[in-house]
């Protein structure tokens, strides 16, 4: 199993969620994060004084899925989260060795979904 973690623009969350649901991925966990990257620190003016915005609000979406769904998931996220502008975000894929459903004790593939 793999964990697919996508850092996306917050207002794209609904689109990405719908895209994933469409290909049958329903389990997901979301966190509010702040990011720094190409789209980086800028300086703004407030009442004649400067301030730096170093980190930009982003949403982190994590899904743990069977390895064979990774390509479909990446594709779905990419299409839905793309605005073509800098700061659209990244997708990171890593391995998950074991999954347990707390309620039932089911493990791995059975515990997903």
């Amino acid at each position, binding site marked *: 199993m793999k964990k697919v973690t996508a850092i996306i623009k917050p207002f794209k969350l609904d689109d990405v969620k719908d895209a994933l649901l469409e290909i049958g991925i329903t389990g997901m966990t979301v966190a509010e994060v*702040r990011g720094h990257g190409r789209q980086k620190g800028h300086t*703004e003016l*407030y009442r004649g004084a400067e*301030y*730096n*915005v170093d*980190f930009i609000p982003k949403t982190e979406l994590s899904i743990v899925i069977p390895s064979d769904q990774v390509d479909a998931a990446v594709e779905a996220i990419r299409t839905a989260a793309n605005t073509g502008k800098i700061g659209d975000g990244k997708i990171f894929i890593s391995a998950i060795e074991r999954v347990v459903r707390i309620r039932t004790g089911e493990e791995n593939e059975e515990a997903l979904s």
Partner: protein
Amino acid sequence: MNSSGFDVFFLTMGAAMVLAMHAGFAFLEVGTVRKKNQVNALVRVITDFGFSTVAYFFIGFSVAYGINFFAPVSELNNIGDASNGYEMVHFFFLLTFAAAIPAIISGGVTERIRFWPNVLASVILVALIYPFYEGLIWAGNFGFQAWLNSTFGAEFHDFAGSVVVHAMGGFLAFGAVFMLGARKGRYTRDGRVNAILPSNIPFLALGSWILCVGWFGFNVMSAGNAEGASGLVAINSLLAMVGGLLAALVAGRNDPGFVHNGALAGLVAICAGSDIVHPVGALSIGIVAGVGFVYGFQLIQTRLKLDDVLGVIPLHGGAGLWGGIAAGIFGSTAMGGAGGVTFMSQLVGSLTGVSIAIAGGLLVYGAIKTTMGLRLSEEDEYMGADLAIHQVSANPEEDMGA
């Protein structure tokens, strides 16, 4: 002893209390809108107040009452029979009513209206449309009251402005909301309403409390001078407020928004007849207003598909109209009231106000829409009026990370 000083004192307190109500309007709106539009709600309400003052000072007050203040101070202090500059504090008191017009409308058009077009509309309404009807009813202009009196046996009685202020504001908002269209995402493609949740119930409640307390200045000081102050007006305002809030509590199933607005609905409805109806009549008027607000609000959003964010059409328009008519029912001696009113005068007077408001609203907001545009761009609306118009959010330290 000279009584003018006391009357100035009396109206200063009244004016200060109704001025405070504008803070109430602001916070009721801040609490009801989404967080990204809180700053704009605050700035829009105080700005509207500012421009209303200028418009009413230079134009509106003389449209309504034929009085202006373009004379040296020594003369100003003695306009009319009064001394101590009574007419100037009287202006202040009446201005706080006039400025309520944009403050009322604000709750309907919030979260999507552009800044300066909104200011323009406020100026036109406070300089011309409101004072026209105000003068018709409260200054006897154009013989309208005389005609009602000779036709239906009494003048149109609107002691503190259920119709002159509230129905006028509420139905002007109809035109504004209609011309603006609904907030993005408010209705689904197949026509169902999506809830857009309020940001902050404590601020909403704070706004309501400020309005409730200030309202006793609105109503009691409408007597115009201390000698005329009436305990009946005070108790009736109280009982209508209570009737409204308890009825909305039950009809709205404990929803905090309905309860706190229900109190206001009762107060809107009692303005017209507060000096003539019996306290038990006032309680009844409030109950009807409270229930009416709850159902009117839902009707307007689901059936009429008007995105009236705070529900100002049912709150000020609906309850105001009901108040104008109710004074003709509960004010009669048959209902234990003080009499001196007729149902037909109340009905005709109220509907005249409503008609002027609907026509005026469609006209003014329609004209601005076609000439300069009324509405924020889709992107600005999404981002929120705070960042789009004011470059700052409601909690800058937290939101804009320094």
